[in-house]
């Protein structure tokens, strides 16, 4: 069974992490059953990853939360509000996908 993941970004006005690089790292680590998308379509996804450049996470609003069953929030050096070293961000997100 394939699992669809959508990625949404904050606007990126002053990011303290490289958001695009992080998504690339996550993509590389994903096993084949996961399909990563930019979330531009209206379909419902199994999992959403909201990638925000800083702890403010201003894009973390209810507007689009219905577009995925489960959301993982990356906000600066944190995943779901837990601080983590930048180099571990991708692996921690990956662990939450499973």
């Amino acid at each position, binding site marked *: 069974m394939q699992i669809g993941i959508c990625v949404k*970004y904050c*606007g990126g006005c*002053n990011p303290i992490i490289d958001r695009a690089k992080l998504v690339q790292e996550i993509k590389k680590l994903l096993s084949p059953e996961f399909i990563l998308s930019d979330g531009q379509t209206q379909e419902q996804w199994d999992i959403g990853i909201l990638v925000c450049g800083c702890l403010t996470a201003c894009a973390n609003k209810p507007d689009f939360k219905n577009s995925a069953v489960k959301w993982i929030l990356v906000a600066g050096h944190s995943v779901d509000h837990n601080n983590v070293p930048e180099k571990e961000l991708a692996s921690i997100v990956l662990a939450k996908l499973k």
Partner: protein
Amino acid sequence: MALKTAEQYEESLRKMNLKVYLLGELVKNPVDNPIIRPSMNSVKMTYSLAQDPQHEDLMTAKSHLTGEKINRFCHLHQSTEDLVKKVKMQRLMGQKTGACFQRCVGMDAINAVDSVTFEMDKKLGTKYHERFIKFLKMIQKEDLVVDGAMTDPKGDRGLSPGKQEDPDLYTHVVEKRKEGIIVRGAKAHQTGAINSHWILVMPTIAMSKEDADYAVSFVAPADAEGISYIYGRQSCDTRKLEGCEIDVGNRQFGGHEALMVFDNLFVPWENVFMCGEYEFSGALVERFAGYHRQSYGGCKVGVGDVLIGAAALAADYNGASKAPHIKDKLIEMIHLNETLFSCGIACSAQGHKTDSGTYLIDLLLANVCKQNVTRFPYEIARLAEDISGGAMVTMASEKDLRHPEIGKLVEKYFKGIASVPTENRCRILRLVENITLGTAAVGYRTESMHGAGSPQAQRIMISRQGNLEQKKKLAKEIAGIKD
């Protein structure tokens, strides 16, 4: 199509027929003119970032008029969150261009004209707001650039518009016809005018009854018959004609201003949003200025980010980055830059709803924001020059660096640390030069001083909005004074 691509924007400009004079000549093709093109690239970036999933959350908004996804530069702010996102978008744009990206002035104009025309119609029974909304829907649908045009040449500053020796020194209505109005005059310092599809003209000051002909607001296509532009010179602008990329500092992006002249411009009534209602001219000026003073808490911060980064790299390349005073100067630059951002965010978060539903910033805080902008970029620029060292203005040219004989001397004697090529050091020092005293200094320095109103204009507003009587009451209460 509510979002144009960057390429579609460029093509749309090619179809226009603007009458632009630059260095004494009529420009046949402004889009490809090497002096003008970098400014077009900056506006173009407002289109490409809106298409980028990594930035669309800031760069786009949902139109409250149509429900369509639109470029935020065409949006009327519907909440304080919209006002905050506006500032963040402007910071992002400053970071991506290192220059003035010109589209803010139209966004600020549409937001000011919306609430003022709504209130005019409510009080006077006019139809200006209805006309304005029709215009705005077209702008949103076509994703067009609007140049908000406020500043008149003003001639003798000691005289009111009607008392000037030459009446055209303030833009005014010279004739009212059944089909529309005839306008004469000019607008000075028009940011991004050559890269705009439409112009939105507003009065320059609060007008009195005797100057009612000067209380005029309208829109016109930027290439309408009767409008011409005289392009503003910038420091070091002709370096762009030399065919080099290092010496220009920022080879891709820039900004521009122009003098916009109205020579008996005909404007049909459907495009007129104020014509003689002088009692509303002050509100329009105040709101536009307020929004634009908020804007500077975003755009200048983004350019400041680039300048701070350039200064830090210059220190790295000079081998000076570990010196405590260099570290401290970079901290000071960041502190000043983030203070400006704080002001931009604060006046947005403290915004409020107007009668039309469009949100307005906190005017006191927006004026405090701009007052700081008249000072801090100068200090940030001073520190950038301090850190960079004198080579930023004494360095040899790119042609000397590439020269088959003396190139090796330039390579040898302009070298910093061994691990960094001389060319990279030259590039970063030229970028500092560009922002602090080259073409981009127009936007980063003098525009910070005078754009959106000179410092004294903010001090007048701070005085009006400062609630001094309340502060006196507080002091009396604490001091035990009973009147």
